[in-house]
Structures are given as structure tokens and as C-alpha cells.
């Protein structure tokens, strides 16, 4: 008796690559729809503690909404004499970078038909706090460097895994926001 075994297993990383492809085609034809605005509202609580929320955004030519309102608390740790009610803002930046790069790894892996089993990353932002404290004007406020280390288990060669991570950086919004200058216009309403 013959048994037929399916030999072609396609990677499934839970990324809807067909949607991404069709979106790309649609937005090539209709570039206006590609204009998105992302919004966050922030409210001071007390001390260095504040709460940010996001719910609505604009895209595809219309107002859009998240499934639910998401909120994030920002604060400073106790060693800065704060109450430590949430992550520091710079940790939120690192979290944003990590989320963006990891999403990219999954999408690129799907595109290249590479099955992922696990993906984890540790991020480290090095900072000389003399900058934010105004001790030394020559020290910048922000990170002097950001180091990201990925640990990935996938059906791929080490070079293919490195290429996933490299391509993810190339396509990442947050990587671009951090590595390139952006004009910031702050107004008081």
C-alpha cells in the first residue's frame, strides 16, 4: 500500500504576506492611501509619571481605530527619587525598536518561506546621564549607542538568519526614526 506524504511544508509565522503584497500593489496605484498619521495622547499624572494612550489613527484615506485603547505608563526609577510607576521613556523607545525589528523579522521570514520557531532580542541603550542632568554640555542627552542581540531558532542557515535581521533593519520604521534626523514641531495649544 502506498502512502503519500506531503513534502512541501510552507512556513507559517502568522504573517499575512498575501495581504502585504496586495497592499503594496494597491498603494502603488493609490499613493494617497499610503499617508498615515499615528497618534498618542499623553497626560501628566504626578512627578515624572505620565500616561500615554493610543486608540485612533488615520490611514487608507479615513479615520481608523485600534481594537481597544492601549496605554503605557512612563516614569523614572526610585534611584532618581521618583515613584517608578512605569518604564522610563528611553526604555519605551527600545521597546518600540524591538517590536518593530521583530515584526520585520517575522514578515521577512514569511516572505522568504523560512519557518521561525523562536525569536528573542535583548536591547541595551548606553547613556551618559551627565547630558540630561546638564553636567557637561558636550555629552548628548540621548543614547551614545544602542546594542541589539537577536537569538533566533529557525529552519535556515546562520547566514540566512543574519540576512533576516539585516533586511528587517532596512525596512524598519523605528530603526529609520532613530538612525536618521526627523523634524519635530512642538506647539503649545
Amino acid at each position: 500500500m502506498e502512502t503519500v506524504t506531503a513534502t512541501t511544508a510552507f512556513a507559517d509565522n502568522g504573517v499575512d504576506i498575501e495581504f502585504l503584497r496586495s497592499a503594496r500593489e494597491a498603494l502603488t496605484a493609490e499613493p494617497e492611501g499610503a499617508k498615515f498619521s499615528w497618534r498618542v495622547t499623553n497626560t501628566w499624572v504626578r512627578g515624572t509619571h505620565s500616561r500615554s494612550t493610543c486608540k485612533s489613527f488615520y490611514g487608507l484615506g479615513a479615520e481608523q481605530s485600534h481594537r481597544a485603547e492601549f496605554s503605557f505608563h512612563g516614569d523614572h526609577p526610585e534611584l532618581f527619587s521618583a515613584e517608578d510607576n512605569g518604564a522610563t521613556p528611553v526604555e519605551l523607545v527600545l521597546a518600540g525598536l524591538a517590536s518593530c525589528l521583530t515584526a520585520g523579522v517575522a514578515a521577512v521570514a514569511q516572505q522568504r518561506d523560512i519557518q521561525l520557531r523562536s525569536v528573542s532580542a535583548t536591547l541595551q541603550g548606553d547613556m551618559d546621564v551627565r547630558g540630561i542632568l546638564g553636567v557637561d554640555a558636550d555629552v548628548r542627552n540621548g543614547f551614545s549607542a544602542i546594542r541589539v542581540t537577536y537569538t533566533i531558532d529557525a529552519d535556515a542557515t546562520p547566514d540566512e538568519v543574519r540576512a533576516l535581521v539585516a533586511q528587517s533593519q532596512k525596512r524598519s520604521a523605528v530603526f529609520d526614526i532613530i538612525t536618521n534626523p526627523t523634524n519635530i514641531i512642538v506647539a503649545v495649544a
Partner: protein
Amino acid sequence: MRTTTTVIVGAGQAGLAMSRCLTERAIDHVLLERGEVANAWRGRRDSLRLLTPNWQSRLPGYRYRGADTDGYMTVPEVIDYLCGYADAIDAPVETHGAVTSLETHCDGYLITTTSGRWRARTVVVASGAYNLANIPAFADAVPAVVRSLPATEYRNPGQLDGGGVLVVGASATGVQLAQEIQRSGRPVTLAVGGHVRVPRVYRGMDIMWWLDAIGVLDEHYDQVDDIVRARRLPTFQLIGTPERAAIDLNTLQDQGVQLAGRLAGVTDAGIAQFSGSLPNQCSLADLKLRRLLTAIDTWATDHGLHHEIPEPWRASPTVVEESPPLTLDLAAGTIKTLIWATGCHPDYSWLHIPVLDPKGQIRHQGGVTDMPGLYVIGTKFLRRRKSTFIDGVGDDARDLSNHLAQHLDSLSVH
């Protein structure tokens, strides 16, 4: 007003190859050339040589017949070569008449030049891939103390002031300029974005031989995943020298060139800002190089060459310093010159036919536009990866002349 069947705009390698193919089919035509044959090759920088070896300068009905088959032509040699081709194929070139307008007219086209008007049923645009330099909008913020010029206006280091030079872009032009300017005693900072690293010689053969052999140069426009991206790919980091010397970011750093990330902007205060993406740009290029060399090795083994040629080797990873510079004060006086080696694009400001995309480039499928009888040839990855190479335009000319002949046949049936 004069009349012909086909007007070819431009008498460079693409126009000449097309001319030869039309002559073979006895299609009456003229080449309208703003200057002289091989015009785009005239007035180039002194040290420039082709990136492809001499044997790889095949054109329809013409090839290199000199003794130095593995060498790389200098610009005067390229001009002689193409003028020799124009003579050999008896190309009907009208020189010194720039096309100022192309429009539709009855069932054909009306072409206006600085020396007259032509009517033709078909037109082949072969006016070049590299007419205008790509200069970013923030170039205006470069302080006046720095002389800023596109690579197309650079001739040799002697025309530059002493002092530092910022070269923007690390394709073939950028790395070649960085090398020769650094050697002239002017310290160079090289701003590096996306780039394609390849060795000059691999396992005893020129890299262009390998790319030809394994089929990379013959890849078709409808075979690649993303043709828009493929057409934007920078040129290989290569240089043609009698020594067949290698050039890459490591050899440049050994010579003292300072690497920085992609130039992302210039502030109002004249501070150049470099992207923090340099480590990733180098990783991408190193990984891509390793994939290419692996593909070459596989091909060599499959074709029984493995034991006939030198052993495989891998280039050492690109060295990136711990903290590449993120800013450079252009107003401080150390940088005297900024050279934009950021590529060029075609100029179609004279083309008054609705075949241009929002970026001003011709919409086409492998050189065939939506407008019956209007073709383009000689632009990046037009039909094949080699479309802009002297060695590549011949196959495109054969395909497109075939399409053009069928179009003429269909007109005569009606």
C-alpha cells in the same frame, strides 16, 4: 520637415546597437544626436575606465579586436570603440542637433531638434540613463565655504582645493573618487548608504565573467521579485585598472578614508548628519557578497570547474569602527569640497507624450511603452540586468527591433 520610419534619439551604445538591428531588417531610420557619437562618454573624469573587461564589449556585429582582452578601456578608448562601431555599421547619425520636443502626430511622431523637424512612425528613445545628477533637496543647506559639485563635474583631484573632501555615495563612482582623492593627500570622508560589494577577480576569473557565466547579467525584468528595487540598485563597487586591483570599504579604510553612514541631512547650521545605519549597510553587503560567491562556487562545481581553478575564498567582513561619526561640521573649514556621487537619472523634459510616471520616468514593459511605436532602450535593467552595459544593450536591441518590426507590419496591414 523630413520623414523616416524610425527616429532613434541618441547615438551612444544603445542607439548604435538599435541602428545596426534596424539596418539588418532594412528599416529606414536616423539617429538624432545632440553632440557627437558617444556623447555621454565625452568630458568624463581623467581616470575613468570601464568596469567591464574588453572582451565583454560585444555589440551586434562588433567586438573588441585588440590584444588586451582582459583590460578595461579608458574613456578615449571607449569613444574610439563606439565611433569605430558607428563607422562599421554605417550608422545614419545626424550630429549636433538636440531633440527639444517629441510629440504624437497623426499616426506617428513629430520630433523637433535644434536643427530641424522629423516625422516618423516609430521612435526609440536612447538618450541615456545618466543625464542628470541626483542631488538631495538638503544640498541647499551646505555652507558656502564648501564647494559642492556632482561627480559628473569632477575631473581630477588637482581641480579641488587642498583640505578635506566629503564624498557622498559608495557605488563604483563614490569609492573610486574616495580612493584617488585620498591618494592625492586630501583626507576623505565617505558617506555610505546601500552598496554592492564584489571582488574584482574571484578564483582566477574577472567577476564580470562569473556574473555572465552564472546568468546574473541575463536575468530578465519579469523574472526578478521587485523590478523597481532592482532598477535602483547602486553600481557594483568596482574599478578597472591594469592591475585588476580590488576596491572596497576595507581597502579604502586601509588607505585612511573615514567611513560614515548615509548622509541623511544638513542642518541650517551646516552640520552634516549621517545615518546610524552604517553597520547594517555593511552587513547587508557582506551577506549579499557571500551569497553571490556561494552561487559562483555551486556553478563552478556543477560545471566541473572546481578542480580546474583556484580554491574558493571569502572576503573578510567590512570593518566598521565602534562609533562611526554621526555629524560633521561643514562650516568649520576642514571640509573644502563635497562631491555628490549619488547617481544620475534620465532627463525626459523634452518628451511631451503621456508615458511618464509621477517621477518623470518612462513607464514601460521591457522598453515597450503604452504608446504604440514608442520604445526606450539603454536604461537600468530595461530588459536585463546588463541593459546599461555595452555588452548588454545588444540583446535588448534585438528584442525591441523585433517588436518594432512587428508593429510596422501591423500598420501596413491596415
